């Protein structure tokens, strides 16, 4: 029983839902978009300013093209800043990955110690990085701190060494603080990953008589690659732009031993009020972060698919 015969085209107003229904998705996302624009505006402004000359003494920005960038790159301190920035990021991320993996493996057991430790692991993560840095600053202080006396007890003579005041020990000190605060994050992340691994391949490997190291290297590790990538993305990106810890510890010193890009941006852009010059450092940092994170996220997507296929 079909209604047959051609009929005139239907008035779309009868067929389509009311406009407010169609507009609904856009209205729902509108507040977020407004906020987005409100946040992106300063960014684009920053980008623009970095191509101008905008300082306290010259409060009206004048376009000068790449002059700021050239000045920054040719500054003798730039190489050092780059080394410090990446050294800090690579050092802390690397150590956190290794240490976090070790801790995660040790925690993945059913003993009472591991359960208690898993709970307490969140403490360093929840404390403000600034405060975390202050804790260690307190301990590393030669006169008040407990670190040197304790090391002395273990036979290491570092009496009256001010860890933060010597250029050679300053970077390791801040890396140590970063490791203290963030290794739990990596460890808990990897632990969640370990706990979510399927059991069958491991049972099969055990039946086949594989050694622990073999199992670890060829089963566990490859399957954990997606999660390790996430850990690396978060830690590397965050440590490239770390400010709080270094500022609290030495404010960039001693001298300019710890002048990472962000510290440069703060010092030159904010303290010395050479706004446009300070922004160039942030722009370079932002570009690095953006591209590296894109690459890593792509890698993560692919590695997820591959791990699922295992």
């Amino acid at each position, binding site marked *: 029983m079909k209604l047959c015969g051609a009929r005139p085209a239907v008035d779309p107003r009868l067929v389509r839902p009311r406009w407010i229904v169609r507009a609904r998705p856009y209205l729902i996302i509108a507040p977020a978009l407004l906020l987005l624009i409100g946040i992106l505006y300063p960014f684009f402004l*920053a980008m623009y300013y970095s191509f101008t000359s905008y300082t306290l003494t010259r409060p009206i920005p004048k376009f000068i093209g790449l002059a700021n960038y050239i000045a920054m790159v040719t500054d003798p301190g730039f190489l050092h800043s780059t080394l410090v920035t990446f050294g800090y990021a690579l050092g802390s991320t690397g150590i956190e990955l290794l240490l976090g993996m070790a801790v995660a493996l*040790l925690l993945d057991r059913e003993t009472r*110690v591991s359960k208690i430790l898993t709970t307490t692991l969140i403490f360093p993560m*929840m404390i*403000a990085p600034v405060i975390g840095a202050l804790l260690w600053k307190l301990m590393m202080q030669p006169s008040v701190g407990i670190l040197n006396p304790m090391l002395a007890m273990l036979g290491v003579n570092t009496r009256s060494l001010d860890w933060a005041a010597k250029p050679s020990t300053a970077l390791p000190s801040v890396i140590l603080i970063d490791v203290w605060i963030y290794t739990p994050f990596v460890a808990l992340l990897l632990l969640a990953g370990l706990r979510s691994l399927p059991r069958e391949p491991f049972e099969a490997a055990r039946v086949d008589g594989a050694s622990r190291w073999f199992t670890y290297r060829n089963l566990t590790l490859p399957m954990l690659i997606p999660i390790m990538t996430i850990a690396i993305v978060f830690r590397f990106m965050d440590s490239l732009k770390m400010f709080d810890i270094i500022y609290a510890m030495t404010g960039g010193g001693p001298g300019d031993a710890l002048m990472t890009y962000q510290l440069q941006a703060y010092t030159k852009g904010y303290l010395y009020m050479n706004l446009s010059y300070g922004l160039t450092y942030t*722009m370079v940092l932002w570009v690095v972060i953006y591209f590296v994170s894109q690459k890593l996220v792509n890698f993560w997507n692919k590695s997820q698919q591959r791990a699922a296929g295992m």
Partner: protein
Amino acid sequence: MNTLKSRLRSLAADGVLIIYFVFVLFPILWMVLTSFKRTDELYTTRFFFHPTLESYKVITIGEQFVSGTGAFRPDFPKFFMNSVILSVGAVLLSLLVGVPAAYALARFRFKGKESLAFTFLSFRFAPEFAVIIPLSIIYRKLGLYNTYFGIIWVFQLITLPLLIWVLRGYFEEISPEIEQAAQTDGYPWWQVFIRILLPLVRPGLAASALLAFVFAWNNFVYPLVLGGSDVQTVTVSALSFLSSEQAYYNRMAAACVIASIPEIVLALSIQRYLIRGLSFGAVKG
């Protein structure tokens, strides 16, 4: 299977863990101890001392002293309130904006959806000074410098990405047919949202809101640069006890302890959802 060997191995593993345990907890313990030390006993690194609440009294009641940032009266209760107002305010704004956005990203299909989602995520990784420097100029012009709203607005860079990404995952887990059933049963879309959807994402909502609160509370740079004495937070104030004349480490320690208590309490309550929140939903743990 050599159970003795494996038992020894397990004990060794526990031993290593305990060493790490000490590494993790000791600085915190030391901070708490220091906060109870008398100023004259600061320079003796002894575990046994005469505990006193002097530091706590000083910072809460407020005695004027000179610090590196000039004459300064630590008005700690005010700082604490500021932190509360700013963190709660930031989270509330993020909830208002982020919950609908997360829902839209989970359900609707439109061009550029993933780019939009990635843009929100990218806020998390933005170098602060790229935003701070222009904002410090804009805020002064708009009169937002040293205001609650100004800081709450900037805090969105920290709180919003987290909320959107975690909630998006929770929304995606709910079958759209449940919403369709509720609509067919006679409920308009906003009632479906309140009665059915929100209860189902409540754990994720609570966890990410609390985590966002912690991040906002811990933030140092934004209140430092864009805020003045009116809105100073506890986190910023912790640093102010060190000056070139006298470093009141015990007071600093007391400030650190007070600043850290809320977040430790909160973190313990969302333990279960912690990993999922911290990794922005990438890992379910």
